[in-house]
């Protein structure tokens, strides 16, 4: 065996090293400064990981098991950045007495899920892909359960792991169909043998359902609300952006690479699932009054928009999806950072009604939250508007009547989404409350996380060069 092939997968290798370093540091470090030393160490490691992802050149190793392209590298960088923000914003939660001793575990689990996502995105083989998926999935359940003394957290983790196992089973079943029909599991080979027999289509849908579960597309989304609500807020944020982004990217890459000969079928599948996801999630979100649950439905609907990119099978699909995930990471993390602050300072309350009159006491936090919500709703000039625009444009290039119809439904749904995002803004600014939340003084970590997110929301919107850069790299 040629060991030099490991050099092609430097990002995975360095992340693995980072995992070991954090693990050892967690064991060795003692005393009062453990907390700050450990978090600083993780932060530095993630930042350097970011640099590694940018420097990585496209490569292929282990006879096609591992493939890294410019697009996967950008995606890895984005996800690493998102994880970094999660680490920063989680600090105020990690300082709480009952979780402080689990800080190291949190970092280790986070890094191992990230490693799993790296593998998943860079896989060139179905089994490799499945390994990555599970590697990201199992530690994720532990993260959800990190607050295990809280009943909700444990319940959320149990629901997550049970449904995840179930979906993995269905997906493996689907993959076995594909293997049966084509006799191979290498992406590059499957594409040569695949054709539209009922069995492959069944394999396609079953495979799709497995990743649809991770992205939480309707009808594979039921776990989302319960898990998002019960999980610690930092973990919810992590799941809603990083995990979802990785899965969406992988799904689109595999659909376009492996299932290209039966594109007609998977496009149909996407049409149905997108319309269902956006519409049903919006209907659920309209009547929510629990903010984390609300954000769960919002993320389902956003997932529908992300997958719109995959409808347009051309160069724009990839770049618009990556850009959408990038923008979604910053906007959603900003919202979760605010939720996290309010939750840790406001006695664990995440009900929407506790945001009534929030502006009176915390004008700055309300303002940043509003910016993030505007970006999620797609109001110009924030980045969210442009990301939606590019995704719509990618889908419109498909050119078929059905694609336009789906676009139309998606457009109508943006109006509904605007309504429920603005409900929060209304609660913060307009609703009066005799007993609003007290004034917080945010710690510097929260400020840093919010600052990064807000800078992203504004800068990615104003600088068109970001998208151009991604598009140029993806070609």
């Amino acid at each position, binding site marked *: 065996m040629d060991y030099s092939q490991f050099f092609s997968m430097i990002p995975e290798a360095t992340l693995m090293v980072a995992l070991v370093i954090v693990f050892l540091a967690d064991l060795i470090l003692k005393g009062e400064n453990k907390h700050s030393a450990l978090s600083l160490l993780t932060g530095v490691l993630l930042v350097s990981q970011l640099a590694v992802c940018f420097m990585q050149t496209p490569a292929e190793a282990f006879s096609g098991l591992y493939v890294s392209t410019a697009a996967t590298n950008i995606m890895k960088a984005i996800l690493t950045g998102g994880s970094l923000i999660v680490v920063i914003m989680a600090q105020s939660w990690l300082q709480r007495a009952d979780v402080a001793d689990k800080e190291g575990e949190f970092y280790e689990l986070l890094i191992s899920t990230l490693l799993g996502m790296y593998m998943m995105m860079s896989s060139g083989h179905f089994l490799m892909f499945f390994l990555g998926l599970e590697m990201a999935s199992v530690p994720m359940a532990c993260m959800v359960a990190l607050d295990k003394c809280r009943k909700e957290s444990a319940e959320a983790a149990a629901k997550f792991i049970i449904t995840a196992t179930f979906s993995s089973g269905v997906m493996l079943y689907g993959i076995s169909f594909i293997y049966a029909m084509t006799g191979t599991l290498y992406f590059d080979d499957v594409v040569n043998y695949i054709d*539209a027999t009922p069995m492959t289509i069944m394999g396609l*849908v079953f495979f799709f359902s497995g990743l649809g579960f991770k992205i939480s597309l309707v009808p594979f989304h*039921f776990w989302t609300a319960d898990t998002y609500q019960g999980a610690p807020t930092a973990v919810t944020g992590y799941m809603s952006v990083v995990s979802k982004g990785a899965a969406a990217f992988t799904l689109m890459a595999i659909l376009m690479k492996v299932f290209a000969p039966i594109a007609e079928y998977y496009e149909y*599948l996407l049409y149905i699932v997108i319309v269902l996801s956006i519409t049903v999630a919006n209907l659920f979100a309209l009547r929510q009054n629990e903010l984390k649950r609300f954000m769960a439905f919002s993320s389902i609907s956003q997932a529908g928009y992300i997958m719109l990119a995959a409808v347009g099978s051309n160069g724009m699909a990839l770049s618009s999806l990556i850009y959408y995930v990038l923008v979604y990471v910053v906007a959603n993390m900003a919202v979760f950072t605010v939720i996290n602050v309010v939750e840790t300072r406001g006695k664990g309350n995440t009900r929407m009604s506790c945001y009534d009159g929030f502006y009176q006491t915390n004008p700055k936090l309300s303002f940043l939250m509003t910016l993030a919500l505007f970006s999620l709703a797609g109001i110009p000039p924030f980045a969210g508007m442009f990301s939606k625009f590019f995704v719509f444009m990618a889908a419109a290039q498909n050119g078929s009547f059905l694609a336009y119809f789906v676009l139309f439904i998606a457009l109508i749904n943006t109006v509904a989404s605007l309504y429920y995002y603005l409900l929060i803004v209304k609660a913060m600014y307009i609703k009066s409350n005799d007993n609003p939340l007290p004034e917080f003084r945010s710690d510097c970590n929260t400020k840093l996380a919010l600052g990064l997110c807000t800078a992203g929301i504004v800068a990615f919107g104003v600088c068109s060069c970001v998208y151009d850069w991604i598009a140029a790299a993806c070609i």
Partner: protein
Amino acid sequence: MEYSYVFLILLLPFLSFIVLGLAGMKMPHKTAGLIGTLSLGIVTALSYYTAFCYFTAERGVDGTFATMVPYNFTWLPLGVLNFDLGIMLDPISVMMLIVISTVSLMVHIYSFGYMHGEKGFQRYYAYLSLFTMSMLGLVVATNIFQMYLFWELVGVSSYLLIGFYYPLHAAVAASKKAFIVTRFADMFFLIGILIFGFYTGSFSFSFAGNVVMGDGATPFIPVDVVRAVAAGGFIIPTALVLMFIGGAGKSAMFPLHIWLPDAMEGPTPVSALIHAATMVVAGVFQIARLFPLWIEYAPGQMSIVVYVGVFTAFYAAAVACAQSDIKRVLAFSTISQIAFMMVALGVCLPGHDGAVLDNHAQLGYMASMFHLFTHAMFKACLFLGAGCIIHAVHSNEMSTMGGLRKYMPITHITFLISCIAISGIPPFSGFFSKDEIITACFAYSPVVGWIMTAIAAMTAFYMFRLYYGIFWGTENKELHEHHTPHEAPLTMTIPLIILSVITLTCGWIVNFGSFVSASGLDYEIHLDKQIAITSTVIALISIALATYIYKGEKQPIADILYKRFPKLHRAAYKRFYMDEVWMFITHKVIFRLVSTPIAWFDRHVVDGTFDFIAWGSNAAGETIRPWQSGDVRQYAVWFLTGTVALTLVLLCLL
């Protein structure tokens, strides 16, 4: 690259706006004022330096000053069309830089005294900076679209400044009126721009070849007039006339003039800056900017400009004769003078011998720009003088004034100088520019020439009526004993002195034609003796008439005239009921016949539909709520059902 510093001319006022707008309330008044004034001082210095470099540079091979484009970048590429932003220097934009920065600097200094101690002093300076930035951006625009952007910004800052005293109902109403009327006109401007862009494939102005692009500047997409002409000869004229409507709105041409007199509710220095010297001439500037297109492709339609201009000039002069509020008199005088500039542009004739641009046939172009320049100076001086007077007597009404010359000598002298200038008496600057306009009018048609001469005579008459009413005439002793008027502080009188010195000298010291002319070639201004003497004599006669009627303590002739023609006086005082006509059109016709049915439709049909959709969505949300039961077994069932159903759908459908 030469002129690489010009971006500072736009950037500095903008920064000053940002700083004052965000942090102004935390600063003491003095600091805020100093920030605004200092940044504008630098801008003025830069503008003068730019002008010096530009006009002393060597002329090109074809004898014109090269058009410099230090910056130009594509802001929004739209396939064929591009929205560019940049900075362009050519003779008229450099001249406008001088006008705007000079008057704006004077107003900044003056406001130190005038606005002393006002609430919102910092906000006032922030708005002034914003306005100055937008106006400068308008004149250096490299294309019509950029011009429109800044055009609207100018409108917004004007709105903010007119409504500066927002607790006063009148100020709020006036700012709304100004904004709505000019916006209404701007709609036509926008339509014109779109037509122009669609058919010619470009937003850039039509140029002579002599253009020097800066490093890294995007070259202009050439205007494809051939295509537009091929699409029908009416395309370019239609676009130009629509754009002219927009310009007429900003420049207060009849019948869109109604906002300008009301805009006098704003602080007086603002009136001097925006509603006398800079913003209101934007319409004139727009036509001058598009002049090559007008003269080549729409010479016939230029008569529209002439007719509108002549009528407005006459109408405004007539109204000015009867107003009693000194700022209103000045406002109508401004309308009349801008109409002079419009007429001057309109009376330009196609060139001789096949040349499109010809300095002799198009003397009006030069005259119009010249008058714009001189008028900006003396009208700003008049307004600032009026500000001193209002500051002294705390009222705008002429009845509270009279005999003020004893109390306010500096204001008196500078006001007199400006009055003589606007009346067109040599050697004051107004004489030179107005004389060129009348010469151009006579070349176009003797009828127009005589009408304009008559209006010039009316100008002299009402200006001196105003002058005597303020400084001579019957003194309101009762009021003045109670509160003795006094001369304004130095910060207010220095700008007056500077502006009156410019007014005194700028007519004969420089040869304006060598800087700005229709074809860009050097043009020697020579006075037509016959016309010069005639108009001077007529102006002197009307001044004498005004002296005879209004100078004395008692004014028997004025009273007799008033008694003989009460209806005419009343009609002129009421501005010939133009506001009432507009009120009738909007309230009675548009509101009742158009808006009421639309409102009904909106309230019942549109709102009803959307209420229904909202109710439906809410109800659907409520209905599907039980799906999310929290029961994991059920979730698994749904999951599997969904997967199988999707498979079946795919298999059956395809």
